[in-house]
């Protein structure tokens, strides 16, 4: 940045808007954001809808606009639907950072990505291939049918599988809507409709936990592999009892932490979202803005029996 | 312990008001055990309200209420029931989805272990009750679809099985036919003989004088008199009840009979009536007589178009009236004052003004819009023509007494300026004073050239008012009698003759 760092103190007023409230994933990112705000002495709040729909998110974006928030840090429920509201906020001088789930690039200044999509997709394909010996039928248990990030990963995984893993056949994709019960029941249905299923990939924390719970008490335990994205606290039990060999995730807390710093940098004018801009993100060190305003957190971590007890989130 | 040492039931100076409406001022009633006590009064005199106070449905605002000498104050109908009071309300209180047996024993079914209802015992008892009443009703069938008479029987069976010491019947005979009334009276007498105190409310004086031993008259929510039945006659009672002399009950004036206005040919509705032919001329009152259930209301409703029919034609002034289209029928000059005024005639929760104009809205609207001022002007005019007793036009229809409700319905239909008026049971549940007013009105209307088709179950009314009588039995026309031929015997004969013996 060109200005001295003193400019970032005091008036950085940051509003976090998660996909929905009551989601532990965003609870963790909230913690990270809060921590960062304390460090750079900004004010922080998290508001959001009770249901993960774009229209309910728009009301909260509008409110932040009215309040003249310094920056909105948001995980988008739709790449387009909240775009105009964000544009409106930017017109009023509010900076917009997306994290976790992006909007179209023109609606925000910076997207803090939990890992680049290719990396996530590749990691999950790698884990499932390892678990089933690179051969057999697999299925995907996703979140909502419209979730941007999920669909992108699924597309990339399909490509990766077709290109590099001819022995693995993706037979079905089902949607658990990030709802425990639905994900649980969908897992049961998957196993029945595909008797030869060898593995399930669930690239969502809610889905993988529900699927693990189903598998752990069913006849398929140990026979059908499960991997995907999950939090260590939710999955610890199933890794220990052998239902799940390994899974991956980045640290949502770090994600929130980094996003808050990115927001602060935007507010203070340290960065504008141009490719090549750099900023300090506290204990995470220096980050550089990539093409299309992308800021990558880093590669996801793989969790397994060996290391899972080292994490607590 | 029958109350030989005093009346079973005493109410003294009971008062009750609903908001600003004073229903009872100072009502008094003393009924002895082993007696059938008539309670008579004009519509709105407060009879039903008194009944509802006795049964605990309403709480009195003031006055005394003694049951077998002890002062009581029921807060719910359950309490009065437990104290031995059975009530047959003006409105039937059956549960249509439940079986007849369950209807009789609801809330006090015989139970066995674990509080399990003993269905067998209940059925046996129901059979016994019906045997005692001499009726054949399947105790297992649901109450839905029962005729009014059968519903009334079930109410009575309920009361008997309660072994009530006080039985109150609020206009139980209003919808019953001759022999059904007879049956009811027999039951009432049996109950009296077993020591029960019976209160009987009715507007039909012949029944009152035949059945009861004592008569209490009420007027305007207050007590007027109590006399043994053999010390008064109908005229005394009527005078006390109305508070003035009542003129002729059937003030039929001769009128000039003109062309046919309504012509019905071969009207048939499967299972209800068939091949009904009818004509009504202008200035003529045609009585449509028959037993309850003969299908008269159905014929009227089919003519007016609220019900459909399978065959036949209806013409007004020679022009065909389309089937199942009441709007068209109204436009062409048919008006129907239905039998059940509280359900079909009025919208109880709407005010007098809107009720009266509800059939003429179309003609009252200007450029498609309705203006309240026009509406009120028309309503005011018709309400005063019929002398509806109310202070303001926004009085709700439901708070009027039966007679005044009937006037509002009449106003509503007369305001459509019909060519032919079909009027179903014009004076059912209406007191004598108002009754003669309604009759005078019908007569005047006929004189003004209106054709009137009058359905009535009261023979004197038919004979007193009609120029011509058409008799319906089991859905078939069994006789058509001129005013001179129409004797009670001739009408009853035709009304009871079945189609088979007729054909």
């Amino acid at each position, binding site marked *: 940045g060109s200005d001295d760092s003193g400019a970032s103190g005091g008036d950085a007023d940051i509003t976090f808007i998660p996909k929905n409230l009551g989601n532990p994933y965003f609870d963790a990112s909230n913690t990270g954001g809060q921590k960062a705000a304390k460090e750079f002495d900004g004010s922080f709040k998290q508001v959001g809808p009770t249901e993960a729909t774009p229209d309910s998110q728009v009301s909260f974006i509008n409110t932040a606009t009215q309040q003249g928030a310094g920056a909105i840090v948001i995980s988008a429920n*739709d790449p387009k639907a909240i775009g105009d509201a964000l544009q409106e906020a930017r017109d009023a001088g509010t900076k917009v950072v997306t994290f976790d789930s992006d909007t179209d690039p023109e609606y925000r200044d910076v997207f803090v990505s939990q890992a680049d999509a290719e990396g996530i997709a590749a990691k999950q394909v790698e884990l499932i291939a390892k678990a089933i010996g690179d051969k057999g039928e697999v299925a995907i248990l996703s979140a909502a049918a419209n979730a941007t990030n999920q669909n992108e990963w699924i597309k990339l995984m399909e490509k990766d599988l077709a290109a590099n893993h001819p022995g693995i056949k993706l037979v079905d994709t089902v949607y658990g809507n990030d709802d425990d019960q639905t994900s649980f029941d969908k897992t049961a249905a998957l196993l029945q409709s595909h008797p030869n299923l060898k593995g399930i990939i669930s690239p969502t924390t809610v889905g993988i936990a529900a699927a693990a719970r189903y598998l752990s008490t069913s006849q398929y335990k140990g026979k059908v592999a499960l991997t995907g994205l999950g939090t260590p606290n939710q999955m610890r039990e199933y890794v220990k009892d052998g239902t799940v060999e390994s899974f991956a995730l980045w640290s949502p807390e770090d994600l929130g932490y980094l996003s808050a710093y990115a927001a602060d940098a935007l507010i203070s004018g340290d960065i504008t979202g141009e490719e090549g801009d750099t900023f300090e993100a506290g204990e995470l060190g220096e980050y550089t803005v990539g093409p299309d305003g992308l800021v990558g957190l880093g590669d996801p971590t793989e969790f397994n029996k060996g290391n899972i007890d080292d994490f607590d989130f | 312990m029958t109350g030989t040492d005093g009346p079973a039931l005493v109410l003294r100076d009971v008062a009750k008001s609903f908001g600003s409406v004073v229903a009872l001022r100072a009502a008094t009633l003393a009924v002895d055990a082993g007696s059938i006590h008539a309670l008579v009064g004009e519509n709105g005199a407060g009879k039903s309200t008194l009944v509802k106070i006795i049964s605990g449905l309403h709480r009195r605002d003031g006055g005394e209420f003694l049951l077998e000498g002890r002062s009581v104050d029921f807060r719910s109908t359950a309490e009065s029931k437990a104290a031995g009071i059975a009530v047959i309300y003006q409105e039937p209180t059956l549960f249509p989805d439940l079986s007849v047996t369950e209807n009789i024993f609801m809330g006090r079914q015989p139970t066995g272990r674990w509080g399990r209802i003993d269905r067998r015992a209940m059925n046996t008892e129901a059979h016994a009750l019906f045997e005692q009443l001499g009726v054949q009703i399947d105790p297992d069938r649901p109450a839905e679809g029962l005729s009014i008479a059968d519903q009334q029987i079930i109410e009575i069976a309920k009361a008997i099985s309660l072994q009530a010491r006080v039985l109150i019947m609020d206009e139980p005979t209003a919808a019953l036919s001759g022999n059904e009334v007879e049956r009811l009276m027999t039951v009432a007498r049996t109950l009296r003989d077993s020591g029960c105190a019976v209160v009987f409310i009715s507007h039909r004086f012949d029944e009152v004088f035949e059945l009861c031993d004592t008569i209490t008259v009420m007027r305007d929510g207050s007590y007027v008199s109590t006399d043994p039945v053999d010390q008064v006659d109908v005229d005394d009672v009527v005078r006390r009840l109305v508070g003035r002399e009542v003129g002729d009950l059937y003030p039929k004036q001769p009128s000039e009979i003109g062309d046919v206005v309504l012509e019905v040919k071969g009207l048939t509705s499967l299972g209800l009536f068939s091949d009904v032919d009818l004509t009504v001329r202008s200035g003529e009152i045609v009585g449509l007589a028959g037993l309850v259930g003969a299908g008269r209301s159905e014929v009227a409703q089919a003519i007016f178009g609220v019900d459909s029919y399978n065959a036949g034609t209806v013409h007004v002034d020679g022009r065909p009236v389309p089937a199942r289209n*009441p709007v068209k029928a109204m436009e062409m000059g048919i008006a129907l004052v239905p039998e059940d005024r509280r359900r079909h005639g009025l919208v109880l*929760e709407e005010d007098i003004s809107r009720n009266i104009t509800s059939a003429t809205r179309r003609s009252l609207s200007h450029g498609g819009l309705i203006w309240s001022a026009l509406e009120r002007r028309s309503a005011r005019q018709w309400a005063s023509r019929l002398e509806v007793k109310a202070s303001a036009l926004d009085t709700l229809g439901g708070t009027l007494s039966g007679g005044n409700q009937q006037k509002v319905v009449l106003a509503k239909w007369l305001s459509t300026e019909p060519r032919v008026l079909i009027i179903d049971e014009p004076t059912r549940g209406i007191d004598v004073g108002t009754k003669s007013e309604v009759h005078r009105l019908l007569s005047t209307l006929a004189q003004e050239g209106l054709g009137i088709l009058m359905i009535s179950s009261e023979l004197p009314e038919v004979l007193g008012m009609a120029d011509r009588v058409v008799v319906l039995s089991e859905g078939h026309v069994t006789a058509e009698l001129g005013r001179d031929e129409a004797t009670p015997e001739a009408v009853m004969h035709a009304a009871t003759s079945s189609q088979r013996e007729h054909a």
Partner: protein
Amino acid sequence: MNTYADSARPLLMRLFVNRDAAVLLLLAVVVLYSMAAVPFFSNDITLYFLLLDLTPILLIALPMTLVIITGEIDLSVASTVALSSVLFGVLHRDGVPILLAAVLALLTGALAGAFNGFLVTKVGLPSLAVTIGTLALYRGIAVGLLGTTAITEWPEGWTDLAKAKIGESMVPLVLIPIVVLSVLFAILLHFTTFGRGVYAIGLSKEAARFSGVNVDRTKVVLFTLSGLVSALAGIYFTLRYGSARGDNATGLELQVIAAVLLGGVSIFGGKGAIPGVLGGVLLIGVIASALRLADYSANVIQILTGVLLIASVVAPSLLGWIGATRQRKVKSSRK
């Protein structure tokens, strides 16, 4: 000749002591209080966002009012919004001119409403049950048609229209169709024979039939209108968010019904008026907006919506009960 007063109550009392007046008064109080106490609330942009957010509810509340006054209910409205939104999107995606696509979506909405009406009148089913069924059916078709995708390519001019402001002001353009439709529905309900029929049906279906009201036709018309207006809301929804999705407007039906009931419409039918309903919708919207600005969470807004709805229906009977008790006391002390 008998003379009758127009009313037993004085004119002023009739005007100011009723449900509609109470809702509108409450609305005024809440607005004034929020302007004074909630930061940013008095900005003119508040009104802009408020109206944009409330547009679908305001629109659907109009036919819903009439439907509920006849004693029926339509739970399928939000699903119809989604269905028309998705259909609009699919047609647009497949190259149908956008106006034609809108018209077809509107027609589908009307058809969906008419189907409800058909089941309620001709088959004689209770509307609560019917529309629970079509709630699932219409939403299911919407989700089925689009699957995982959302259609987000819309011509700029159209999406801007949904958010346009009138001139330089902060008043959104959509206010104009809302006002026009509100006036039309108010006239239909309060000043036409059709409207009288609607009330009569709600108070007594049978009596209405005997007075020459075509009960079935009236209901079919209302359900069709309900579907049509819901489809209109669906198109608005699509354009405002630039996104046709199967899960658009999830849960909106309960919000609409809550607002309508808060506005004084009786769930038993026969009672209610358009001004009160508009007041009810705005009241919920204003409270939610003020709470959000005051940084209350969405949960508090939910709780308050629920409590307000209950209070609005319980209050009259509570007041009645208090009145009756007092009257009884006065009477007994007079003795």
